[in-house]
């Protein structure tokens, strides 16, 4: 271990940022705080993206691991104990200097601190706690801090950490308990859900106290989030979305992140992905996630018994609308807010604008177009003053043909050539994670 102490901050940063890059969460939103005229830093409710990496993901926080010297052996992870990779560990002081140095130059919005398990869970959590305490109390840092709760750590340290952090997260890693058992032998579903429940309880307790006492300490004010790896195990999209839904309902999570599986290790329990990571599937899951959180959908509505996976050619809302054509067309001037939200192509902003503007006069297609409502998809599903935009028939095949978005990045080897929807039923059960199997069978 001696040579580690000679490693400079630059080298450590490279190793530990590289190890942290597969963590998806990067939001800096959910808390509004002023510096109050002293110290350094504030936080804005919407969060701020400071830069964008070459893969198009935003860089908002200094995303690093405390250490990649992990004692666990999770099969999908680059830092598992059986891998021969360079190991490094930051000292709390180094992390503080980096954070403040970057923050002063407005490179970042705050710190995202995760860690491999060093020695044991409680010891690791203690290291994280010491670091953010130094940052908050000695450096008087008031920017955003997101830390991981390490499953299996002493609840007392997790609680103490929560009073200093803005967001905590505890990764679910894989959608089902069986998959977890298979790929992450040192973790169990129970140890992961325990800190999640604890954080949830502390948050609601702290909220109650804040009602009574104005200056009660705030526990994880930006809420907690979690993350699942998609495509490493054989779950269907329906299973994944249901898991997310129950996390939102039962654990009051702020966000569930989905991470397309990227093979970093060779193992016979892991799928090989010759066609690249399942990015489109990840995209569909995020679309469905938005439908759950902001559009009043529930998981059961988005799937049917026959269709347990998303349609690769259509987004989940279009797909839902096409199977419920009896509810369309919807009259823009009459439908209530939640009905407007169900129209493909109309989102929260458009629905709100329509509700505001129609108080003054009946809206026509021209009016809503000017307001910024995108009619590309919506025009097949709406009427204004009782009229459709063009004389079209409300027919599943016809609309599908017009809705397929050529700009979306379909998996390699698949293209939509304008064939009708019925022909696509071949792909209805198409499983994104099993590209290679299909490839072998000569389907692709």
């Amino acid at each position, binding site marked *: 271990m001696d040579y580690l102490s000679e490693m400079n*901050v*630059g080298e450590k*940063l*490279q190793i530990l*940022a*590289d190890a*942290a*890059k*597969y963590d998806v969460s990067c939001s800096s939103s959910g808390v509004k705080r*002023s*510096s109050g*005229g*002293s*110290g*350094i*830093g*504030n936080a*804005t409710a*919407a969060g*701020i*993206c*400071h*830069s*964008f*990496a*070459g*893969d*198009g*993901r*935003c*860089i*908002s926080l*200094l*995303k690093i691991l405390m250490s990649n010297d992990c004692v666990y052996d999770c099969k999908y992870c680059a830092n598992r104990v059986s891998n021969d990779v360079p190991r490094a560990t930051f000292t709390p002081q180094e992390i503080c200097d*980096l954070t403040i*140095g*970057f923050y*002063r*130059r*407005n*490179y970042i*919005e705050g710190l995202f601190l995760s860690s491999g398990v060093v020695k044991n869970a409680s010891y690791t959590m203690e290291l994280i706690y010491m670091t953010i305490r130094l940052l908050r109390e000695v450096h008087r840092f008031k920017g955003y801090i997101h830390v991981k709760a390490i499953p299996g750590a002493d609840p007392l340290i997790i609680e103490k950490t929560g009073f200093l952090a803005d967001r905590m997260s505890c990764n679910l890693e894989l959608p089902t308990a069986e998959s977890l058992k298979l790929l992450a032998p040192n973790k169990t579903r129970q140890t992961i859900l325990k800190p999640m429940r604890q954080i949830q309880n502390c948050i609601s307790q702290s909220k109650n106290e804040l009602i009574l006492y104005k200056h009660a300490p705030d526990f994880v004010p930006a809420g907690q989030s979690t993350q699942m790896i998609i495509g490493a195990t054989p779950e269907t999209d329906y299973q994944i979305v249901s898991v997310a839904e129950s996390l939102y309902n039962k654990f009051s999570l702020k966000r569930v992140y989905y991470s*397309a599986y*990227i093979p970093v290790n060779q193992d016979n329990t892991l799928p090989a992905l010759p066609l*690249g*990571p399942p*990015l489109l599937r990840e995209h569909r899951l995020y679309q469905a996630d938005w439908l759950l959180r902001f559009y009043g959908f529930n998981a059961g509505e988005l799937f049917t018994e026959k269709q347990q996976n998303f349609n690769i050619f259509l987004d989940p809302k279009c797909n839902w609308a096409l199977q419920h054509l009896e509810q369309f067309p919807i009259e823009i001037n009459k439908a209530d807010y939640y009905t407007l939200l169900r129209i493909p192509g109309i989102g929260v902003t458009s629905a709100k*604008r329509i509700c*505001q*503007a129609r*108080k*003054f*006069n009946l*809206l026509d297609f021209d*009016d809503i177009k*000017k*307001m910024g409502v995108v009619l590309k998809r919506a025009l097949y599903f709406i009427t204004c003053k009782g009229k459709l935009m063009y004389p079209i028939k409300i027919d599943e095949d016809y609309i599908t043909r017009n809705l397929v978005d050529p700009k979306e990045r379909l998996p390699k080897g698949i293209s939509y050539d304008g064939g009708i929807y019925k022909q696509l039923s071949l792909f209805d059960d198409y499983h994104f994670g099993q590209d290679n199997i299909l490839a072998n069978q000569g389907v692709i």
Partner: protein
Amino acid sequence: MKTRKIFICEDSFEGILTGVFEAYICRYGHDFISLELNGEDQPQFFCEYYPVETDIVKATKVGQAIRKKISFDAYEMLHEASLANQTKKAEAIYRFLVLGFKMGPQVMSHLSNPYILSVMKLSKAVTRELQRLEGFVRFRELENGIMFSKLAPKHNQLILLAPHFADRFPEENWMIYDEDRKAACIHKAGQGWGMVSNIKIEKELMSQVSEEEELFLKLWKSFTKTITIEERKNARLQMNMMPKMYWKNMPEVE
């Protein structure tokens, strides 16, 4: 048929509000008056042109009336719209106010009116860039400890940007310089901030950075490179989220 009166005002919030004041006070009829910015359009026939001299007292009066009769939100929105780098904004603001003083606070949701919509769009354009800039501003530490940042924003943003950074770095001496408009906002540690116009900062002055600066620049560049997942490379998405016009002032993508 009356001849049209066109008031020419200065390109600033106060300038436009003074124009609105003059348009009301002349009692000529709103239908026969328009507001234009200096040098915005070719002079037309059969119009009378009146240059308006910016007057803080008159502008303040209109400002107060907006807050009282319409709403504070409307006042903020008009302020943002007035900073936009677009033509016809004076006319849009004037028409907004003509309707707004009649309708009161509800005017904000009258989106099917073209002038209300265009004021809203102007203010959206400005705030959208503002949100981006809050992230894309990059400071460098000069030899004398001042944090310096150079920008070339599309809209005249500095006055909206300053409060955010004043709250963020209350104990720093910092300065944000708008290269195109030759203006700067300057903040003194522990005190407030102020705007300075018509200044030119020499390149040499900007490049005298502190010793630590090089180190952090190197660390930051290596961090942004490392955090990229090669398998997910997507240059188009990166460019959509971070338009190229900002790149020249961002060290990690220079």
